[in-house]
C-alpha cells in the first residue's frame, strides 16, 4: 500500500464532501477524524440505544446521503486521528489516538476542514464546573445525554434557540434563553431573511417552542456573572431597563457566536511540494450547507492542482449563504452595543487554562514600556495554556484594545502561536512517531526530534 495522494482532516460535512469529490478523480484519499465516529458537531451521532434528536428540516437526510456516498467512494476513513501539524519538510503529522503514536505522512495535498469553534465571552464565573459552551451541551444532547435539571442558556445567536428547541423536543426545555440582541426589534433585518426561503422551515422549527410558550426567550438581556452555591449555580441577569435579577439553575450553556477553528493552522500552500487547502467553517463560518458545497469545491480543486492546474480564485457558489449569515448577525446584534470587558470585575478569568484574570492582564499592561501581544503571551501567559489560545486570544486582544484605545489593534497571529503541534500531544506519542505500518514511508525521526 502506498501513501494517500490526499489527506482530508475533519469528518464533518465539509471534510466528507471534500473526500468524496476528490476520490471521484481516481486519486487515493484518506479521511482523518479525531472522534470515534464521523459527522462533525452538526451531525454528531447518538450512542447505542440513545434516541436521536430532532434535526433541522433543511438538514434532514443530508448525513445519511453523505454517509452512503462516502461508503461507496473508496475513501480510506481513519477515526481517532487528530491532526498535529505540518512540519518544515511538508510532512503531515497525525496522532493515532488509539495507538498513542504520531504518524508521519507524506500526501501530495492536504485539505483542512476542522470546522468552527464557539466564541464564549468571559464573564465572572464562566470557568465553573456546570458551565459549558452551549454547543458543548448540544453535541452531548446529540450523543444522547439530555442536559438534566434546570438549564439556562445565555449569550447570543440562533444556536441558543436551536438547542432550546432540541431540549424541548427531548423533554427538558431550558428555564430560559437569555439573548443579548433583540431580533424582534429589527424588522428590517428580519425581512431580509425572506430572501432566503430555504431556511424559513428551519427558523420556524427554532421559534416553535418560543411561540408555543414552552421556552421563555428574554431578549436584550445580558448574563453578567455566575456564582456557585453548593450544587447550584446562580446567574446574574441585567434586563433592558437595567434591572438586575438572579436566577438559580443546575447548569448554564453560554454562546456568543462561532469563529473558524483555524488556530495555528498552516497557511494555504505553506509547505513546499504540498498543496494545502481549507474547506467549510474553518475557512469561513457559513454553516452546514455551505460547508458541503465548499468541501466539494476543495475536493475538486485539490484533484485539479495535483493534475497540474494553477490555483483557482476563491469564487464559488456560497455567496448566497454569506449574505444569509450577514442578515442573521444583524438580526442578533446586541441592543446595548458591544459589551465592554473592562466593565467585568478584576477577578474575571480570561485565560481558563492558567487562571489568568483581567487584573493580571491590566498589571501586565501597566508598566512604563509598551507591551506587545506576543509579550502578553510569553510573559503574561495569555494564550500560552493547553488550549493554545483558542478560548482567550480574542478576548485578551479586545481587552488590550479597550485599555489602549489609541494603539492599533493586534491580530491573533501576532501573539505568535502558529506552529505545530496544534494540540497537546504526549511525548510517548511523538517518541513512537514516524513508523506507519500501512505505507512504505521511511521514518522521519530526525524531523520530529529537531
Amino acid at each position, binding site marked *: 500500500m502506498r501513501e494517500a495522494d490526499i489527506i482530508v482532516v475533519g469528518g464533518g460535512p465539509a471534510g466528507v464532501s471534500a473526500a468524496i469529490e476528490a476520490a471521484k478523480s481516481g486519486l487515493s484519499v484518506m479521511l482523518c477524524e*479525531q*472522534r*470515534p*465516529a464521523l459527522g462533525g*458537531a452538526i451531525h454528531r*451521532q*447518538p*450512542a*447505542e*440505544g*440513545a434516541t436521536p434528536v430532532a434535526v433541522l428540516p433543511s438538514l434532514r437526510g443530508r448525513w445519511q446521503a453523505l454517509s452512503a456516498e462516502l461508503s461507496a467512494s473508496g475513501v480510506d476513513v481513519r477515526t*481517532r486521528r*487528530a491532526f498535529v501539524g505540518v512540519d518544515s519538510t511538508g510532512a503531515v503529522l497525525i496522532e493515532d*489516538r488509539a495507538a*498513542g503514536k504520531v504518524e508521519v505522512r507524506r500526501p501530495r495535498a492536504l485539505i483542512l476542514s476542522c*470546522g468552527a*469553534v*464557539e466564541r464564549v465571552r468571559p464573564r465572572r464565573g464562566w*470557568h*465553573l*464546573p*456546570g*458551565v*459549558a*459552551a452551549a*454547543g*458543548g*451541551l*448540544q*453535541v*452531548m444532547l446529540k*450523543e*444522547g*445525554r439530555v*442536559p*438534566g435539571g434546570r438549564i439556562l442558556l445565555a449569550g447570543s445567536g440562533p444556536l441558543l434557540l436551536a438547542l432550546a428547541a432540541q431540549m424541548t423536543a427531548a423533554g427538558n426545555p431550558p428555564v430560559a434563553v437569555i439573548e443579548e440582541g433583540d431580533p424582534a426589534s429589527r424588522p428590517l433585518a428580519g425581512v431580509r431573511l425572506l430572501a432566503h426561503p430555504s431556511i424559513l422551515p428551519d427558523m420556524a422549527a427554532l421559534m416553535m417552542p418560543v411561540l408555543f410558550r414552552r421556552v421563555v426567550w428574554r431578549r436584550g438581556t445580558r448574563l453578567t456573572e455566575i456564582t456557585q452555591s453548593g450544587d447550584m449555580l446562580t446567574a446574574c441577569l441585567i434586563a433592558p431597563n437595567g434591572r438586575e435579577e438572579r436566577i438559580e439553575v443546575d*447548569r448554564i450553556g453560554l454562546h456568543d457566536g462561532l469563529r473558524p*477553528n483555524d488556530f495555528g493552522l498552516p497557511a494555504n500552500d505553506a509547505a513546499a511540494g504540498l498543496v494545502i487547502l481549507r474547506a467549510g467553517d474553518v475557512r469561513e463560518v457559513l454553516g452546514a450547507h455551505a460547508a458541503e458545497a465548499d468541501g466539494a469545491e476543495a475536493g475538486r480543486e485539490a484533484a485539479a492542482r495535483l493534475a497540474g492546474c494553477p490555483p483557482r480564485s476563491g469564487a464559488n457558489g456560497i455567496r448566497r449563504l454569506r449574505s444569509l449569515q450577514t442578515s442573521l448577525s444583524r438580526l442578533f446584534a446586541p441592543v446595548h452595543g458591544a459589551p465592554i470587558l473592562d466593565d467585568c470585575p478584576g477577578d474575571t478569568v480570561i485565560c*481558563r*487554562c*492558567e*487562571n489568568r484574570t483581567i487584573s493580571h492582564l491590566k498589571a501586565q499592561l501597566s508598566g512604563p514600556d509598551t507591551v506587545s501581544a506576543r509579550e502578553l503571551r510569553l510573559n503574561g501567559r495569555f494564550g500560552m*495554556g*493547553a*488550549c493554545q489560545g*483558542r*478560548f482567550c486570544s480574542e478576548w485578551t486582544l479586545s481587552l488590550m484594545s479597550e485599555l489602549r484605545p489609541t494603539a492599533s489593534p493586534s491580530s491573533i497571529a501576532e501573539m505568535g502561536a502558529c506552529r505545530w503541534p496544534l*494540540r*497537546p500531544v*504526549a511525548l*510517548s506519542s511523538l517518541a513512537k512517531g514516524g513508523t506507519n505500518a500501512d505505507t512504505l514511508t521511511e521514518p522521519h525521526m530526525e524531523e520530529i526530534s529537531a
Partner: protein
Amino acid sequence: MTAVRTFFWRGSEVPFRAGESIAAALAGSNIHGFGKDPAGSPTRYFCGIGACQSCLVRVDGRATEACLEPVYDGMVVMALEDDDA
C-alpha cells in the same frame, strides 16, 4: 435486554452506553466536576469538540480529553490530581 455496561471513575462504577464519550457517560450520572488540574483549577466539560482542554482526565496514566475519548467496559478513568489506580 442488554446487560448494563460500566467503567470506573475514580474507583466508582459508572454505567455507559456503547459509543459514547467519557464526558457524556459522566454527565449521564450527573458528574460535572472532574477533579483539579495541576494549576488547582476545576477540570470540567466545556466545548465538547476537543478544543478547550478543560475536560482532561487520566486513562492508563495519560491525560486525554474526556469529550473525545470513547468509553469501554471496565475502563479505569482517574482525575488528573489522582494517583494512578
